[in-house]
């Protein structure tokens, strides 16, 4: 998507995150990484590869096997002035830490009337489509977005991943960083030598801004993380049939950049939201409700949602049918345009 000089190397998203972590650790000695198998192994996805060697075991901490323990100690470290970046090995294993995240991490700043900041990042490889076994393909972002005090983002491409992880780490508020593991190996040209903009403005605005990744006039597709690529493919495919589809990469799930979203829908009059998480009580619900409230008279069709079914994530053999794939997206586009 980004034009870059020919010499810029192509970097997969996983590597872009590694480099973002590296830049953040170089920029601030208080940044440290914690998680299961993030040291010698470099994480099961190798995202922390090489960091133990360069930053040592005090800053790249292989923790005991306990997610509540990871988050709980991260909170204490943050109180002491550190900036812990916690890796949860897989989406499905974040729930033992749910209490520490929801009740402690999210509320500490409020409880202390702003006296305590919580610069904690929780990295969560999430989503399906990689043929994994049970509990390794879930999309739990909506379960955290309901809770005030947390910020939730999800990059869809290497460049965003590289910049957003640094901004997330620089944020004084806790940030849940959902990494679409099915896109870990998608590459893009990226110069990882230049650290990202981590100014106050970048943290407040850039980190949480949606981006129009393809302009269009007939219908808007809102996506984030793994579904952005699918949405672009759907737009491409629809273009062949003469339909002009705008694609928005939300990038942030809490807060949601409703200004960008509603500006688009005011023009296109139609919105389809795509995410891998189940539709019922998913992000699409909030988006549909709020966009409808804001664009009531502009909407030509109800906001349609494409996502997982009201079912546990199924066995890998049939996950393709569960996921909001290209066909499912196109079907929703057709239905929305048919109004």
């Amino acid at each position, binding site marked *: 998507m980004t034009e870059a000089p020919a010499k810029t190397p192509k970097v997969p998203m996983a590597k872009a995150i590694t480099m973002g972590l590296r830049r953040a650790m170089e920029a601030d000695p208080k940044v440290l990484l914690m998680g299961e198998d993030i040291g010698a192994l470099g994480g099961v996805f190798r995202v922390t590869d090489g960091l133990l060697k360069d930053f040592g075991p005090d800053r790249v901490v292989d923790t005991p096997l306990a997610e*509540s323990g990871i988050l*709980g100690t991260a909170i204490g470290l943050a109180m*002491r002035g550190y900036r812990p970046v916690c890796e949860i090995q897989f989406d499905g294993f974040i729930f033992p830490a749910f209490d520490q995240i929801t009740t402690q991490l999210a509320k500490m700043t409020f409880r202390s009337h702003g006296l305590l900041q919580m610069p904690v990042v929780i990295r969560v490889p999430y989503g399906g489509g990689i043929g994994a076994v049970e509990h390794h393909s879930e999309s739990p972002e909506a379960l955290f977005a309901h809770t*005030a005090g947390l910020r939730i983002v999800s990059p869809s491409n290497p460049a965003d991943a590289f910049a957003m992880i640094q901004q997330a780490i620089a944020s004084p508020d806790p940030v849940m960083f959902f990494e679409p593991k099915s896109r870990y190996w998608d590459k893009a040209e990226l110069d990882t030598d230049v650290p990202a903009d981590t100014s106050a403005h970048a943290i407040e605005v850039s980190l949480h801004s949606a981006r129009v990744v393809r302009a269009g006039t007939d219908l808007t597709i809102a996506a984030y993380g793994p579904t952005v690529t699918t949405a672009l493919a759907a737009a491409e495919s629809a273009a062949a049939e003469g339909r002009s589809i705008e694609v928005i990469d939300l990038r942030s799930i809490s807060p949601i*950049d409703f200004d960008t979203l509603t500006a688009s829908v005011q023009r296109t009059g139609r919105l389809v939201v795509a995410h891998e998480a189940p539709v019922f009580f998913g992000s699409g619900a909030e988006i549909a409700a709020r966009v409808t409230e804001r664009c009531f008279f502009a909407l030509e069709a109800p906001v349609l949602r494409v996502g997982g079914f009201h079912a546990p994530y199924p066995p890998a053999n049939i996950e393709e049918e569960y996921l909001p794939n290209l066909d499912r997206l196109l079907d929703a586009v057709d239905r929305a345009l048919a109004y």
Partner: protein
Amino acid sequence: MDAHTAAPDAELVQLITPEGVRVENPTYSPLVAGLTADDLRGFYRDMVLVRSFDAEATSLQRQGELALWAQCLGQEAAQIGSGRALAPHDFVFPAYREHGVALTRGLDLRKILHLFRGYKHGGWDPAEHNFHLYTLVIGSHSLHATGYAMGVQRDGNVGTGDPARDTAVVAYFGDGATSQGDVSEALTFSAVNNAPVVFFCQNNQWAISVPTARQSIVPIANRAPGFGVPSVRVDGNDVLAVHAVMLEALERARSGAGPSFIEAFTYRMGAHTTSDDPTRYRTAAEEDYWRARDPIDRLRTHLVNEGLVDDAFFEALQAEADELAEATRTYCRGLGEPPATEMFEHIYSVPHPLVAEERAWFEEYEESFLPEGGAS
């Protein structure tokens, strides 16, 4: 009398008997050998003051000034004995009835009322006295303390030999809390990191209505060594013994020798909170038994027997205690209510569009109720 009300077994560290008699302990007596009569009077003073405060808060709740109150009645020795062992730069993570510890930290106790009045969730600046906010969610803060201690290690403030620098972290919690997975995880994380943290468990024999025997069939102090954390059981109603074991544990932490676990065997003489009705689950005989073992009486007897106090001391202290109660009452009644817009503040440190939007809506909505032309 139930098993759990039986007199603490002989393995409890004790330096002053329930009869107020000082006893020797080869390990622990030396640790408190340097305490002066002034120190002992100071212990007594703190215990009396916090009891006065606690009683006043209880009565404020009865008067409808507080939503709830959690008394520390009966646990004063455990709290003052341990709290007085701390250095100012040590950091404390209390549960919710550590009013005695708060006193030793120098916190203006009246700020504790904020939480129990429903006025604020917090109420004080944790950094001011290195005393964290109360944590109501049982056990969670044991992990925060452990993480904080891991930060202390990274700051290089352990094992330097410089008493102004070496820092210990303390987590206070109850017997019930030991059943929470978080507390076990805190033991694990502290042990494998050799973190400078002290887990101080006030076993007051009840978790609301549930006796300690429903949380553990062996002494609570046995728990920690299985994680590699040394532990000790102390008579929690003996302020001197508590002080001694706490000094030892803090020194271990600060010197870099790692975490410790203290079980202070005491008794919750009051109800769990003002909402509780202990007559439903324990006998008057049990309460009487423990009332006769009041930790304040024990120290008083000792001080009197040793001739370390006189009437003037008691009178002055009573006046101080009355004054604290009075100041507490006045403060509480004067608190008023915070502005409703406080609920939109400090949810995030960085401006947040949804919060801003909801706040703006709310302010406009509230203004719509003002008498016409009344909005500024």
